[in-house]
């Protein structure tokens, strides 16, 4: 098993080369590099690992276990589809290069066999994804900045947790890696909390999630396809690494809450991609709940859901992208009746919507069912259980209803409601190929769940492995799915009218963005002013004492500014013309005197700081 090549390597190489190639050749290379990952990681035997030394520490760059294999396969696949879609959607080479960098670093993160390489790629993901957002320019820049800051904070917390872990155990290796420590997960009492919060940013814990709907609707449509896949799913993977053994009750409930919260918030949205973004949170809630429950069944369910979610959420973003691509509109209110104009897109959307909602026969039904059944069999009843349903289960079911409702809303307004003025072309060939391929997989995995089970880390059909053997198509399950769908339909019919009156629903970032802004300003101004005051004091004391020595008893001007400026003006007369011009230029460059003092831009430069000496 020597001479292993970590899968991220070819992808990143492709990313580097891509900007220098032609569009067609470059994207072809991108598709090739990402697609090649799928068979490669599938074929590498479990347990293979590539020990290296990173910054002088033992690290494992390529660690194959069922979890990472699953992530690698789906990342590679969706990466290839995404590149194809990018090509079809007129993304330029540089953007695709950033996207490939993002894919590559995500692969690096999931195949890392130790905390160090995990967090290393984790941070790089934040960088590459920020670049991907920024590349679009305009409103994406600000959002990208907020995204970067929040992920910076999350990454730092995670890093802190890992350092803590290192201090406890003396190694960065995962417990499962040969040579690793005896314990799995993060050691100590503080590290898991830090890591939970840090990873919580990535998976969109309620309160830490606002970057999702903030960022994902803004960049290029192809960029959104990439974005919706990697960060949150790597987050789920990271969450599993942090709580690998028995899960964590709080995390499980957080997952449940996310499922409900995301779905409800999604219901209020009119921006297509914003709606989908809230759904990421909702769906990730199922996965987080699965990881939080921590049993073999739950973890298998969580990762099955990761797998499926990547397929249908990628597909959803693709369809939404096509709509935007063809119509130029982002709001559901501005489109409608597109089903007739864009049958392929509408079809793909329907498949994806039914998948995400968990309708029987589609892949979402399978994986969501596993998680819900795990929440039923492997988890305590909790505070508000009703009629044999555990609390968590109820949350997840409610989330399911919300999902139905919001996708009925999406589909209704975008494709079926009213009619579209004029003609709109359907998805072009490349987009169609991508969408149909993914849609086919959604159906395939829905109808033949065994194919899905084959990639899961735990065999959910074996009694030896899981506490409760999972059967996909039982009467109960199908009934459950249908009931949810009906509840969704009814619910949507009920709230449709009041919902259309809702203009804007505030989210947590409406509180913490201004709060952060003000707090930062107070901090910055406070610190700098304090510092400036001390500095002025010292400088004045120094100049005064010099003045006292030089001319004892002479009256001293308290303010030195006036005479100094005069002196400067005086001196200018003696300067050669060239330097004079330069001085003036320098002075004009100063915030005080420049024309840009009018100050619409920022608070940093309103006043004069630290001018002395």
């Amino acid at each position, binding site marked *: 098993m020597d001479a292993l090549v970590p899968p991220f390597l070819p992808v990143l190489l492709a990313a580097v080369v891509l900007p220098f190639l032609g569009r067609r050749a470059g994207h072809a290379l991108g598709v090739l590099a990402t697609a090649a990952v799928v068979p490669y990681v599938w074929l590498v035997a479990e347990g293979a690992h590539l020990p290296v030394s990173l910054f*002088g520490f033992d690290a494992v760059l390529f660690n194959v276990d069922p979890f990472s294999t699953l992530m690698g396969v789906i990342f590679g696949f969706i990466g290839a589809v995404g590149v194809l879609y990018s090509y079809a959607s007129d993304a330029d080479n540089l953007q695709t290069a950033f996207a490939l960098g993002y894919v590559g670093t995500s692969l690096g993160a999931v195949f890392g066999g130790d905390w160090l390489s995990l967090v290393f790629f984790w941070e790089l993901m934040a*960088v590459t994804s*920020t*670049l991907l957002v920024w590349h679009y320019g305009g*409103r994406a*820049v*600000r*959002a*990208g*900045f*907020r995204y*970067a*800051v929040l992920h*910076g904070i999350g990454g730092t917390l995670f890093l802190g947790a890992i350092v803590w872990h290192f*201090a406890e155990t*003396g190694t960065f290796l995962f417990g499962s890696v040969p040579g690793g420590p005896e314990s799995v997960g993060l050691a100590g009492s503080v590290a898991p909390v830090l890591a939970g919060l840090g990873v919580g940013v990535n998976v969109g814990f309620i309160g830490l999630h606002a970057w999702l709907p*903030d960022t994902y609707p803004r960049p290029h449509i192809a960029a959104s396809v990439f974005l919706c896949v990697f960060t949150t799913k790597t987050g789920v993977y990271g969450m599993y690494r942090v709580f690998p053994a028995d899960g964590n009750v709080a995390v499980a409930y957080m997952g449940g809450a996310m499922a409900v919260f995301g779905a409800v918030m999604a219901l209020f949205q009119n921006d297509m991609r914003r709606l989908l973004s809230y759904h990421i949170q909702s769906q990730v809630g199922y996965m987080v709940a699965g990881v939080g429950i921590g049993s073999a069944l739950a973890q298998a369910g969580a990762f099955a859901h990761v797998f499926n979610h990547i397929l249908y959420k990628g597909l959803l973003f693709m369809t939404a992208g096509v709509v935007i691509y063809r119509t130029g509109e982002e709001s559901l209110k501005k489109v409608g009746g597109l089903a007739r104009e864009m049958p392929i897109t509408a079809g793909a959307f329907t498949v994806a919507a039914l998948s995400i909602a968990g309708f029987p026969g589609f892949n979402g039904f399978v994986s969501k069912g596993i998680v819900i059944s795990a929440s039923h069999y492997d988890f305590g009843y909790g505070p508000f259980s009703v009629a044999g349903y555990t609390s968590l289960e109820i949350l997840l079911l409610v989330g399911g209803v919300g999902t139905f409702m919001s996708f009925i809303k999406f589909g209704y307004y975008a494709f079926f409601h009213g009619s579209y003025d004029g003609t709109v072309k359907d998805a072009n060939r490349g987009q169609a190929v991508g969408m149909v391929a993914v849609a086919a997989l959604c159906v395939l995995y829905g109808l033949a769940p065994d194919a899905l089970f084959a990639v899961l880390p735990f065999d959910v059909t074996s009694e030896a492995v899981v506490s409760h053997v999972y059967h996909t198509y039982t009467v109960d399950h199908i009934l459950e799915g249908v009931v949810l769908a009906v509840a969704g339909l009814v619910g949507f019919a009920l709230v449709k009218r009041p919902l259309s009156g809702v203009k804007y629903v505030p989210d947590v970032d*409406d509180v913490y*963005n*201004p709060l*952060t*802004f003000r707090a*930062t300003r107070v*901090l*910055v*101004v406070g*610190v*700098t002013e304090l*510092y400036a005051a*001390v*500095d002025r004091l010292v400088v004045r004391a120094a100049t005064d004492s010099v003045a006292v020595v030089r001319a004892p008893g002479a009256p001293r001007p308290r303010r030195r500014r006036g005479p*100094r400026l005069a*002196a*400067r003006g005086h*001196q200018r007369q003696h300067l050669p013309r*060239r*330097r004079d011009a*330069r*001085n003036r*230029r*320098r002075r*004009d*460059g*100063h*915030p005080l005197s*420049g024309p*840009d003092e009018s100050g619409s*831009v*920022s608070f*940093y*430069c309103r006043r004069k*700081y*630290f001018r*002395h*000496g």
Partner: protein
Amino acid sequence: MTDITSLRPLAAVLVSAVAVVPILASYRRPNLREGWTVLAAVCKLGLVASMVPAALRGDVYVTKLGPFVPYIDLTLRADALGLLFALVASTLWLVTSFYSIGYMRGLDEHSQTRYFAAFAGSVSSAVGVAFASNLVVLYLFYELLTVATYPLVAHDETDEARAAGRKYLAYTFGGGVAVLGGTLLVVHLAGTTAFTAGGIAGLANSDPTLARVAFALLVTGFGVKAALMPLHSWLPDAMVAPTPVSGLLHAVAVVKSGVFGVARVLLDVFGIDLVAELGVGGVLAAVAAFTLLTASVIALRQDNLKRRLAFSTVSQLSYIVLGIAVGGAAALGTGDAAKWALIGGLLHIPAHAFMKLTLFFCAGASTSRLTPTTSRTWPASASACPSRWARSQSPQPAWRASRWSPGS
């Protein structure tokens, strides 16, 4: 580890000092003058690099020049730590030489001869700091560095530049005085100041109070150039110097010599065990941590690009000091923690050097092409000068977008 007696460390130090003479002499012929600069830079890099293989083997080149003052030999040692610093400084000098030539000619600056001569002298001193074998030789080059860099700070000859120069002298010579005092105490306590891995034995058995005072003086003294708060205030002001100076000297050579001094004091004078025993490592770490945070906050509010970079330098330098200090504070603790902290701190010396030099170069390039150096005008510059803007973005992507705004 064997000592190889060789003139190479001395030659590496002297080559740029000697180059000052032809540089000054050819003041009428700029091409020749710059030729000397580049030649000296190449020679210096070659000499320093030639010692690297030995350092990797664990051998040390030593130049012994006999006794200097009582207790003190005038000896240069190119050990691994010193070589690290010297290699960074001389590599970047070569790079900066080319940049300087373009910059100075591009802006049609005055007194270019003085500029290049002082630059060569500064680099000489910086390498001297790197190769110093004891505190006194270190002090020697430390002071020479101050003298050699002063003309560069005051180069502009404006009121602002002169004021910055005065402040620079006051701070750095003040630091020098503290170093001298500390050195004297060490001489008094231990009878020697020769750097010894693991610390000078004599210090461990001496009066702990005096040892603490000596430590405080030395660290304060070196802390001035390392821009530890509250001794940092010269650095932002020194940014009136031409950009290559800010880049190489005030982000690499000068400030790193301060950091390097702190490292020497902790590692080779007191030794981390003694530092931990005296309980001073924690204090230093606290100061460094404070600087780290506060300087970053202040940097947020600087509109002048170079000043912002300067505060960033203040902050980053404290990373290095923090690493070293934590190494000292944790020496009695468990396992490898101290080692890792030290390695991290020292690794940040070259790392920060490369990062910050690139940033300064970008800032300077925009200065020489665009007029103002305030960051608020940069979005405009970005379109006027996209490649530079992009380059300046890449090392630290978040520097520019430093504003939160509600909503979007």
